């Protein structure tokens, strides 16, 4: 009964989660297919972790339904938890246990028998390069190695779906890239990945991305699809990238200009959303270089958040 390739791995229908009066997830619908790398973005407190917990049956749904790997999240939580892997932003293995002991523990928790566990462990150890660290207390490993160990523990039982809740928060860029390489290898082996992140570059790597804010899933699509979302660059407007000159002063001038809808600094440049008829000269940009720009994912999310805040009920579209 545990699903086939055509059945969605995650299927959420109008799911609602409430904590008392607060609605943490509001009539959210979502479908994630086999082998996808799905990225969920959203500010802190937007409901990302709550959604994952609801999908694992840890939090009951106040409405709607959620199925994970063919199991109902509210009634078959144990079946779900036996077939998924989970890795959180905070290192949540036992620091006073060695890497090996942590793996042994989780192998037992996932019900692997001894020989099965041994084979799988050595496979993962080799693959993640954990060999030299096996007998070290896991609390003494560096951030990147901790995350690799956590990933190893989450993969012991060969899960078909892995939830990664901000897996790269607080680790260095090299370790971050290595981790993503590992994730793509997994995806190539038909493991579905559900990743939450703050990083735009990580979002760009995902096959599909969802943006969640205040419990509403505001948009879902491939990064390309999202950038061409009509709301992001409304008709009659275009996006400009302005660089050179005194950026801070330019930003102030742009924001005061009636024909400029948005202006944000990106590194050494300003991204501005301006009315079509506006020319660089009319903006008084002087010597600054101006070129037509594609919206970035960040532009997409900023636009979506602003639209949500301006909506009368504070809810989604």
């Amino acid at each position: 009964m545990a699903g086939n390739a055509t059945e969605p791995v995650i299927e959420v229908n109008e799911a609602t989660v409430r904590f008392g009066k607060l609605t943490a997830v509001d009539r959210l619908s979502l479908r994630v297919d086999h082998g996808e790398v799905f990225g969920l973005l959203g500010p802190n407190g937007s409901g990302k972790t709550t959604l994952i917990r609801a999908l694992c049956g840890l939090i009951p749904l106040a409405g709607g339904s959620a199925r994970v790997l063919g199991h109902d999240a509210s009634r078959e939580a144990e079946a779900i938890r036996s077939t998924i892997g989970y890795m959180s932003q905070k290192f949540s293995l036992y620091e006073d246990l060695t890497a090996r002991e942590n793996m042994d523990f989780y192998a037992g928790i996932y019900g692997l028998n001894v020989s099965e566990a041994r084979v799988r462990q050595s496979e993962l150890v080799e693959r993640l390069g954990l060999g030299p660290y096996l007998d070290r207390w896991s609390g003494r490993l560096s951030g990147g190695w901790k995350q690799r160990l956590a990933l190893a523990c989450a993969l012991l039982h060969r899960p078909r779906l892995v939830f990664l809740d901000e897996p790269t928060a607080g680790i260095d860029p090299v370790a971050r890239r290595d981790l993503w390489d590992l994730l793509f290898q997994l995806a190539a082996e038909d493991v579905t990945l559900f990743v939450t992140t703050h990083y735009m570059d990580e979002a760009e790597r995902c096959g599909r991305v969802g943006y969640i804010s205040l419990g509403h899933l505001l948009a879902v699509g491939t990064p390309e699809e999202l950038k061409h979302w009509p709301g992001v660059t409304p008709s009659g407007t275009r996006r400009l990238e302005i660089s050179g000159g005194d950026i801070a002063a330019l930003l102030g001038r742009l924001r005061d200009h009636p024909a400029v809808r948005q202006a944000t600094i990106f590194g050494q440049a300003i991204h501005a959303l301006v009315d079509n008829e506006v020319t660089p000269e009319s903006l008084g940009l002087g010597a600054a270089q101006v070129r037509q720009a594609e919206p970035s994912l960040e532009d997409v999310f900023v636009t979506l958040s602003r639209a949500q805040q301006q909506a009368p009920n504070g809810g989604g579209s």
Partner: protein
Amino acid sequence: MIRKGLSIKRLVSVTRKEVIHILRDPATLFFAVVIPVLELLMLGYAIDTNVRHVRTIVFDEARTQESRALLRRFENAEDFSIVGEVFTDRDLGEALVSGRARVGIKVPENYSRRLQAGQTGQVLILVDGSESSVAAEAVNVSNAIALSESLDRLVAGRALPVEARPRVLFNPDTRSPNFFIPGLLVVLCQMMAMMLTANAIVREKEKGTLEQLFMTPVRASELMVGKMLPYLGFTVLEFCGIALLMNTIFGVPIRGNFLTLLAIALPFFLAMLGVGLWISTRAQTRDASLQMAMGTVIPSIFLSGYVFPLDSMPTFFRYLAQAVPTTWMIDASRGVILRGAGWAELWPNAAVLSGMAVLALVSSTAMFRKRVS
């Protein structure tokens, strides 16, 4: 759907991990092993509830044969130890205020004259009331000494018409260790069981490891039982260890069957572990759990009859004490160790403790389940 009973594999994993935690945490290990033994030695050697050798000062104003005979009786009584002599009322009072003596005896100048005239010879006994048990004992013994002195004078060599021959059963020498250590045995194990388990879940909460566990198929009951087993093991070991020390070092004989006692102690330990886990589930930080554990242990110790006899408590507290597992366990411990009681006498204790254990375990598991979701 996977719907089986407890998974032994998961249970064993949790237990093994918990044992590693205990062994790798020197503070806990110290707390678990060294502290109880120290406490045992300290309490076993230091505590003596029998009032003996109360520091006494005398003011013999009469200085006669009779007055000296009376004072000799005081001297011969084990209860008093004469530490000095004063010659004025002022010095007598001073000796008590300064704490140099707890009892002051004044034989007035007219003592012998009044006796010879057939009148009552009065002796003043000043008692420092700041330690109630010492004061009560001093008053009683002084009265007894006065009474026997009077009787000797009245009967003058004839046999006494009535004589009480008290015989203290089970603890003929009224040795304090015999009274205290069987209770201490229970109290120390209770502290250990509760303090350690109170830590067990809150530690995982603080470290964030519980969150990860919730995402695995492990069940609340498996976690609870898996965490409890090592602590139960440690507590049983400690119980046997303390009993051994009690028997060898302090010479307290075990009159009944130790296995009977251990069998009764098992549900008691489970109840304590259950309460500890309940606390651990409620508390958010380890400090809070430790305080909650202390807050539970201390009243239960005072109510249990470990120090203060149940019979002298007001009715309400006597009933309240029945709700404390420690009360039943201390009664059983003294029963087996001192009175040689067996199942015939102690089955009610075993039954009540078993009931309490079930209650504690069920409610702590239920509480844990509720907290999880």
